[in-house]
């Protein structure tokens, strides 16, 4: 038996013993474990599963053991993933700490920072949010206005962020702040970490057209941030931010992320519209539109799989992540439009004040944000046109 085969056998046995049956079922958005200081576990099983996985470092299997990770190599990561998939195990923890802050700290943090912050992320003890966008800046992320005034040992941070995902639920924030007001636009930004419970921080959820409020406005009024909570150097925050943006798109691109939608259009249409005497959808023209969509959707499935193979082989997606982001989100918008079409008059029954996130109309409206958040489709096309096609 090779090492890998042994690893697989051991993993399988351990999972059999430690993954609660309740955690082996499909989950929807409401079942996600985000962790954090104020997290209320939805069940004992959810808590036990997180603790068991965190103890092995398997909430972040690819991170070094020293920082709370599993220290697994590429093959082992793949095997773990396969074994988890085999029993339909739910992810024990999801967080912006794992997806974003972690990779940034691993790349740019001091050893001290890594030892301090990463294990808390890995165990789900601290929930993080991301303070990038600002009102009026839109796609121009480097147009940071939030200022951090040098006050000796600390910066005094004043300003406003927008589109901060779950800021109202997060414990800490990683945040772009202009600390060098006289430097050129891209060179005056620092990447700061601070506690959302600090004095001077307030958040206000933003109501979306779908009725949900996943984002906040976040206000800073003289928030004191000690200088050792800077990642990389003063004025180098844009480098960290750019690294994270690519990483964010890679993450979006290589996961079956919610952005790409998962509802089965064919099932929805069959249920809503029914079949005619020839066993065809009883709306021939809509049927044709669905067929055309299916071609594009199945082709994109192959592209997502290719991206995963590519990354599994140790490559970076780089700018190709823009292709995935653009294609996947535009497809999901089309899917949701078609689902609404198939849902007809019934799908129009919806109560904004009491909208459920899995209703057709909610999913349709929420999908419109896919091609805006995380970089608009227009920004993706501009990136590709410049970086790949070298136009401009």
């Amino acid at each position, binding site marked *: 038996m090779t090492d890998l085969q042994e690893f697989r056998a051991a993993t399988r046995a351990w999972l059999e013993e430690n993954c609660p049956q309740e955690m082996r079922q499909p989950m929807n958005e409401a079942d996600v474990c985000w962790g954090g200081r104020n997290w209320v576990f939805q069940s004992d099983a959810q808590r036990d599963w997180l603790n068991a996985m965190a103890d092995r470092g398997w909430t972040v299997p690819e991170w070094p053991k020293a920082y709370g990770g599993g220290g697994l190599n590429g093959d082992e990561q793949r095997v773990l993933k396969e074994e988890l998939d085999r029993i339909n195990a739910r992810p024990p923890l999801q967080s912006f700490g794992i997806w974003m802050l972690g990779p940034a700290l691993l790349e740019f943090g001091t050893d001290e920072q890594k030892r301090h912050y990463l294990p808390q992320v890995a165990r789900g003890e601290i929930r993080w949010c991301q303070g990038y966008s600002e009102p009026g800046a839109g796609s121009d992320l480097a147009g940071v206005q939030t200022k951090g005034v040098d006050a000796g040992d600390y910066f005094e941070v004043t300003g406003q962020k927008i589109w901060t995902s779950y800021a109202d639920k997060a414990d800490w924030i990683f945040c772009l702040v202009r600390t060098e007001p006289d430097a050129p636009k891209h060179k005056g930004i620092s990447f700061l970490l601070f506690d959302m419970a600090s004095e001077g921080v307030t958040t206000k959820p933003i109501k979306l057209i779908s009725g949900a409020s996943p984002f906040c406005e976040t206000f800073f009024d003289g928030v004191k941030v000690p200088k050792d909570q800077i990642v990389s150097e003063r004025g180098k925050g844009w480098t960290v931010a750019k690294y994270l943006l690519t990483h964010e798109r890679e993450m979006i691109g290589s996961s079956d992320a919610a952005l790409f939608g998962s509802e089965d259009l064919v099932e929805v249409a069959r249920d809503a519209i029914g079949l005619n005497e020839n066993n065809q959808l009883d709306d021939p023209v809509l049927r044709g539109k669905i067929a055309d969509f299916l071609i594009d959707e199945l082709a994109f499935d192959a592209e997502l799989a290719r991206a995963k193979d590519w990354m599994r082989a140790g490559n970076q997606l780089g700018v190709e992540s823009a292709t995935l982001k653009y294609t996947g989100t535009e497809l999901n918008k089309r899917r949701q439009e078609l689902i609404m*079409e198939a849902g*007809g008059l*019934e799908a129009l029954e919806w109560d904004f004040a009491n909208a459920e996130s899995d209703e057709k109309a909610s999913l349709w409206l929420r999908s419109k944000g896919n091609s805006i958040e995380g970089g608009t489709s227009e920004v993706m096309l501009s990136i590709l046109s410049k970086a790949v096609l070298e136009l401009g």
Partner: protein
Amino acid sequence: MILLTEEQQMIRDMAAGFLSDKASVDAFRAQRNAGQSGDTSINNEMAEMGWFGMLTSEDAGGVDMGAQAAGLVAEEMGRNLTTSPFLSSAVMSAAALRVASETEWAGKVASGEAVVALAMDEHIKHRPDMVGTKAEASGNGFVLRGTKRFVGDGGAADRLIVTAMTDDGLGLFLIDPTTDGVTVDPVKTVDNRNAANLTLDNVQVDGSALLAKGDIAEEALGTALRVGRSVGAAELVGVSKEAADRTVAYLKERKQFGVTLSQFQALQHRAADLYTQIQTTESVIAAALKAIDEGRDDAECLSRVAKAKASKTANLAVREAVQMHGGIGMTDDLDIGLFMKKARACGEYLGDATCHAEWLLRERGV
């Protein structure tokens, strides 16, 4: 490129002025936030301006100004997201009542005294020709059984015009919603319109409830739908124009990377393409409304093309509007999302592009 008579210009100006004052997007939002659907308090004022009698003969108490006039009002309603029983009651029901030679309720509709809703949808998609509701002769009247879906202004209606199959073919029945066995179940909708689902559980009605049957009923329903589609299309193009106008204004004002969005050629071209779509849509709606007023045979086809095209264009308009507004377009605070919801609901109601495209194909024998 629209040729309007002086009178038409006057109607348009009056509608624009009145609605932006009394039934604006702000009013729509306030109603929604208060959990209300539609505002009937201004019905009397609308009626006074003659809006509710535009499709009704003068003998029956209307002003008989025709579909083109109604289209002008509807377009402004679309621009303002006005929720009113105008389309369901004063356009569609009034058109049906006229063909059926009913004058009492036609007069009440015209005067703003009553709302009459047309209940013709039973299926998930708009298929008014598939009527599962049955009306069985019983005594000197009928017993009705069936369900209707998404009855426009069904929740506020004083009377319902219900399609049902009799032994002699299609029948149109005028039913008091308080009759035993009638359940009106108001539903919240994505565009906060005053819709209701309807259940008819052994509803016993008098023979006098039968407005029309057979060919006349078919003609009444056909006329109501034809006028409804064309005026509904005008409402939709109003939604499209306002969404496009607001977006173009936003492009001129919003800065990104140091310049206004209006400098970006990719957005310029998309905005211009949308403009051309709206122009074409306006053209076919005008043609449909005119054909109706002139009683031409091609009104049926034109009204379907108008509704289909208006649905397509509105869909494009609101998608572009939200995307070009970016993040702020996704927030409920901005009005643009309300236009998206309105466009979706109006696009579906009375048949989407797919529905009428199918009719065109069948008509052409393919």
